[in-house]
């Protein structure tokens, strides 16, 4: 009944995810078999999930609204799968965050995607043949999800009020998509990200920010010129922002400014003695004695005599390392023997070091290496024993 024909066509990787999606509803055996055919490894995960989800989702009333929603999900997903897979991410995030009813949400999204359905209708029948190939590719490429992630997904789905099975399957689909996109990134497929991000920001506005605007309107009424207009204004505003966002599609996240500064630094040669003393002379002349107490304190702060206020407890401490580098020091014990008193001793040493907040990581590593050297030197002695 849900036209899977259209659903399968379009974005790569959508097929597997869709299978999961469709199975979310009252799982028909036919579809389950179909999914099993296509999704080899992930299918077992899905099965496991459904077994758990059936236990978790005790409410049977949910099944009837889920039926209705799945139809809309299907119709929505017709167009959505044809687009970038990140659309679904938006949908799901939107679902979870906004407290609008599920059906309204679908209707809204449908309205947005109606435009794109037309283009995808053409693609649908053509790519049906490639659907199976893509599915196979996905199976080969896709790594099986972490069982912990799967459990977490099921727990989250159970906590949410609506459509537990569906949200669960959607979450899993998302996770799989995440992994897929990371694989793509590794292989160098960065083009999708730009579209994705620009699309993401565009889509997010209308459902989520309407609520924000309504609430902000109350606060900002006095600040504005009094031109606060009814919700009719919201759509053109969102349209403007959409347009403005789409206009500047280049996401200049990574600028190339660093190369220029490097070149500038290279031109400066090592300062000669004359340059140094000239600089010192200038500094001596320009440094006038402080006119008042404030300037004196400023001078002292610059010199380092006076601390900076508000006092930061980490002044002078430049430990850029994360906490896990301080605590998990077992990797430094690779060269030690795995049994015996020395290992026992070193484990105690590491335990003490992990609790030490005063040493930097370099110092801790040096500590361990000193012991290593020491025991290396005493090897012959140790072997006698």
């Amino acid at each position, binding site marked *: 009944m849900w036209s899977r024909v259209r659903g399968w066509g379009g974005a790569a990787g959508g097929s597997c995810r869709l299978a999961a999606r469709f199975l979310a509803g009252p799982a028909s055996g036919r579809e389950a078999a179909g999914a099993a055919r296509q999704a080899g490894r992930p299918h077992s995960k899905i099965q496991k999930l459904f077994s758990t989800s059936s236990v978790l989702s005790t409410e049977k009333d949910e099944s009837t609204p889920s039926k209705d929603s799945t139809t809309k999900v299907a119709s929505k997903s017709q167009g959505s799968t044809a687009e970038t897979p990140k659309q679904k991410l938006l949908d799901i995030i939107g679902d979870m965050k906004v407290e609008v009813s599920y059906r309204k949400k679908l209707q809204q999204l449908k309205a947005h995607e109606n435009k794109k359905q037309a283009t995808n209708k053409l693609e649908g029948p053509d790519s049906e043949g490639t659907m199976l190939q893509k599915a196979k590719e996905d199976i080969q490429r896709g790594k099986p999800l972490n069982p912990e992630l799967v459990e977490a997904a099921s727990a989250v789905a159970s906590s949410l009020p609506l459509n537990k099975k569906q949200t669960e399957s959607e979450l899993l689909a998302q996770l799989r998509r995440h992994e897929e996109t990371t694989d793509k990134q590794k292989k160098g497929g960065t083009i999708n990200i730009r579209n994705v991000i620009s699309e993401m920001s565009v889509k997010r506005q209308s459902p989520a920010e309407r609520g924000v605007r309504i609430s902000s309107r109350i606060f900002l009424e006095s600040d504005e010129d009094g031109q606060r207009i009814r919700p009719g204004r919201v759509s053109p505003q969102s349209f403007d922002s959409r347009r403005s966002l789409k206009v500047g599609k280049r996401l200049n996240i990574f600028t190339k400014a660093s190369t220029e500064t490097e070149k500038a630094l290279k031109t400066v040669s090592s300062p000669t*003695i*004359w340059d*140094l*003393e000239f600089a*010192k*002379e200038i500094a001596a002349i320009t440094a006038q004695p402080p006119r008042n107490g404030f300037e004196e304190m400023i001078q002292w702060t610059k010199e380092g005599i006076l601390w900076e206020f508000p006092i930061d407890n980490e002044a002078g401490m430049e430990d850029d390392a994360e906490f896990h580098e301080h605590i998990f020091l077992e990797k430094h014990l690779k060269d030690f023997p795995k049994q015996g*008193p*020395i290992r*026992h*001793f070193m484990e*105690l*040493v590491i335990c003490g070091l992990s609790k030490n907040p005063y040493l930097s990581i370099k110092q801790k590593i040096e*500590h361990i290496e*000193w*012991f290593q050297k*020491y025991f290396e030197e*005493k090897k012959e*002695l*140790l072997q*006698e*024993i």
Partner: protein
Amino acid sequence: MAASMLGWALQAARQVLPSACTRQVRSYYVDWRMLRDVKRRKLAYEYADQRLRINAIRKNTILPKELQEVADKEIAALPRDSCPVRIRNRCVLTSRPRGVRRRWRLSRIVFRHFADHAQMSGIQRAMW
């Protein structure tokens, strides 16, 4: 003007060129005992890590005793002035070894002198 320029140049030179030759450092401590105490403190700072680690091996019930005996000999072989026990908290101004308040690093006589002249922040003659 030329002299000052030369002076600046020399200072700059001292900074630019790393001091390879160790010159005689002339600074005036109150007395020789204070100077020796300063040397002990420097050495103790240098050897602090090493002493800590060798002591960790010595004061142990896990490692074999032979290893601990070797560590004993090693720590005894370190310079005598490197142990922190030999440091004496002398008065900073008079080098008096006894009657020194740790917070101010001053002997009682100097402390009293400054406190009476109201040159010690937050110190007042006690009266109760």
